[in-house]
């Protein structure tokens, strides 16, 4: 066996790959070969470390040195200084990894310190393309335990007792779902995994598949044993090529090791797994639509009941959970239901992964115990709002969720609290907005999304959301009337009540929650024809402030000659002729031109 004195972990998640981690790996290969230490230092391409903001990320063990925003040209220094001479290159470390000239290891950095990683346990720790690394970290031990020591009922009981709830959006108790499928009558049953992560701004499922695909495979095999299924399907979005590729490799390796296939652990249990690709339809994240899509049909939802647990794929009982939910299962089996139930709040157990994005310093993926407050997430782990701007709201739950304002920052995060605030957990997207974001525009953005993604099967969603979008367009263009706001509210309630599936039922949420907390912004658009955040183009006017030095650059830049003024004197803009192109703002060296 080869011995390595150092391990260099290079993030191979989508974020870091996009910012060039592959060229870094090549550069390391070259440098290690040049210095003849390729047999002493091991290169490992891992899944996502979560702190995408700092990508591409390179971690060097045993020190746990956390290098961030590394470029290929930095590799030579890291090799010559750190790997050869043992001097950590402090100026390339993540900024928070150096405190008072002391180097801190990755686990001591604030972003990671407050997290508790269950689902993301091995993301960024193992090489996802090597099954033995997963096994080294107790991989497939849970499957072995289940198959050799536990009855099917024991497994279901354990999941029920753990209090685990679906991580994909609805938050339905996972153990109950397993029990329903277990009890359902059928000669053939299926297990399916929802990896059609469509909420914009959420990417935890992708990260699990990219960083730790075996945990999902293991969990699905456990589920198959518990409910009595021998065939599983993972439905992945085609937009995630790296995840699909890693999952494919993982499935092949599991088959090779006999952890998928016939007679697993010599117990007579057979289980097989297949990947099915989505093709760009958000509605396929809805469970019944997803089933239709796997069957090769248009991904339109079916009425429920019957629920998939009774009649799912090809009319057979089917267990459907999402990626993050599955990723918790092996840990629950190994550490016990009590351990899992000991984390979190009374009704929401365990941890939840959030994708933190938008106007926030530490964009990335984090996993926290349920019950952590929004404030801790945004200001401690997330590092607050960049540029000294004021926090305005955080949007959770994607197009199905809503906004939460500064007043509620101390709310502990769990399923029920978020719903009480008019938002929802959803799949865990968390987008932070600052004072420069217009809430009407954000609502319009999400409506635009749902109108585009509505499958067209039921009229409330197909027609209703379209009408809502038209009203929002009117308002953002300054043509709104006061009664439009009431109309919007009425429509929203009706669509919620009468749509067929979750997509339509939750589509009005972004509008309802922004109306609830930011009604004044809507009214400003309608009554004063003004966009307080300065976003809605049609409502803006350009003005020149006293900072103007009369340099005349703006007059030359204006394509419609709307700016006038003498040289070295204050200029003015004729708002009637101005077409709001913004050319003058870009040209002004004194930042004297403002939008309001």
């Amino acid at each position, binding site marked *: 066996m080869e011995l390595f004195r150092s391990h260099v972990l290079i993030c191979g998640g989508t974020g870091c790959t996009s910012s060039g981690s592959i060229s870094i790996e090549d550069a390391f290969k070259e440098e290690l070969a040049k210095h003849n230490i390729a047999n*002493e230092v091991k290169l490992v391409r891992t899944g996502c470390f979560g702190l995408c903001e700092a990508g591409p990320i390179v971690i060097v*063990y045993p020190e*746990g040195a956390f290098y961030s925003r590394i470029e290929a040209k930095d590799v030579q220094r890291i090799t010559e200084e750190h790997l050869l001479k*043992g001097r950590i290159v402090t100026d390339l470390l993540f900024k928070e990894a150096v405190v008072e000239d002391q180097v801190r290891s990755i686990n001591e950095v604030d972003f990671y310190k407050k997290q508790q990683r269950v689902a993301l346990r091995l993301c960024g720790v*193992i090489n996802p393309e090597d099954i033995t690394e997963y096994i080294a970290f107790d991989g497939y031990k849970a499957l*072995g335990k289940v198959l050799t020591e536990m009855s099917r009922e024991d497994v279901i009981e354990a999941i029920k007792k753990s209090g685990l709830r679906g991580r994909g959006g609805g938050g339905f108790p996972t153990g109950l779902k397993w029990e329903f499928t277990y009890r359902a009558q059928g000669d053939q049953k299926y297990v399916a995994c929802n990896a059609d992560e469509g909420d914009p701004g959420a990417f935890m499922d992708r990260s699990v598949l990219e960083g730790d695909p075996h945990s999902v495979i293991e969990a699905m095999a456990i589920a198959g044993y518990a409910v009595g299924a021998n065939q599983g399907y993972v439905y992945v979005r085609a937009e995630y090529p790296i995840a699909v590729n890693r999952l494919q490799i993982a499935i092949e390796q599991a088959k090779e090791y006999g952890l998928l296939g016939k007679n697993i652990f*010599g117990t007579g249990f057979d289980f097989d797994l297949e990947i099915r690709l989505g093709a760009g339809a958000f509605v396929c994240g809805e469970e019944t639509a997803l089933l239709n899509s796997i069957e090769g049909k248009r991904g339109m939802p079916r009425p429920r009941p019957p629920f998939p647990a009774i009649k799912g794929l090809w009319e057979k009982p089917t267990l459907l959970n999402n990626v993050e939910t599955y990723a918790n299962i092996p840990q629950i089996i190994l550490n016990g239901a009590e351990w899992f139930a000991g984390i979190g709040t009374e009704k929401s157990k365990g941890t939840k992964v959030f994708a933190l994005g938008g106007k926030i310093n530490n964009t990335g993926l984090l996993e926290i115990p349920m019950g952590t407050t929004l404030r801790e997430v945004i200001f401690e782990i997330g590092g607050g709002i960049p540029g000294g701007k004021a926090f305005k709201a955080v949007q959770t739950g994607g197009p199905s969720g809503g906004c939460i304002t500064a007043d509620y920052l101390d709310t502990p995060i769990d399923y029920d609290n978020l719903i009480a605030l008019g938002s929802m957990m959803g799949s865990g997207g968390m987008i932070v907005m600052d004072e420069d974001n217009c809430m009407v525009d954000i609502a319009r953005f999400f409506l635009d999304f749902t109108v585009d993604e509505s499958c067209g099967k039921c009229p409330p969603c197909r027609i209703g959301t379209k009408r809502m979008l038209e009203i929002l367009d009117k308002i953002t263009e300054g043509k709104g009337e006061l009664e439009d706001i009431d109309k919007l509210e009425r429509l929203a309630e009706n669509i919620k009540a009468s749509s067929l599936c979750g997509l339509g039922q939750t589509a009005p949420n972004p509008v309802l929650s922004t109306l609830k907390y930011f009604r004044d912004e809507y009214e400003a658009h309608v009554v004063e024809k003004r966009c307080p955040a300065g976003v809605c183009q049609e409502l803006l006017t350009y003005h020149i402030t006293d900072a103007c030095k009369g340099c005349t650059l703006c007059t030359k830049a204006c394509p419609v000659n709307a700016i006038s003024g003498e040289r070295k004197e204050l200029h003015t803009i004729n708002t009637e002729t101005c077409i709001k192109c913004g050319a003058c703002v870009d040209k002004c060296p004194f930042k004297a031109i403002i939008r309001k």
Partner: protein
Amino acid sequence: MKSLEELAKIREEALKKVDLRSEREGTRIVVGMATCGISAGARPILMTMVEEVKKRNLQQVTVSQTGCIGVCRLEPIVEVYRPGEEKVTYVEMNPEKAKRVIAEHIVNGKVVDEFTIGAAK
């Protein structure tokens, strides 16, 4: 996969590949690896240390490297930090001496006085 034993065996093998990445408390062995240390032969010592720790399956021991320790004429230098004990600095090391340090100091807790910086003076 035919049995739990088989899985345990694969795990045992695989663990050796990854245990570098787990956080460990306990003994830290640091080898001076600046230019002077390297030219004096620090790298074979580092590798010997790593190998010995693996071979003996010492769980709570980290072997890492550091920059110049400051007494270049006594290189290669190895420092051993053990919780609750004073730092011990070994000088003019070679792979054979490194093996003895592991066997006597790290495993049995007895400092190898003859190699320490005190003895060198």
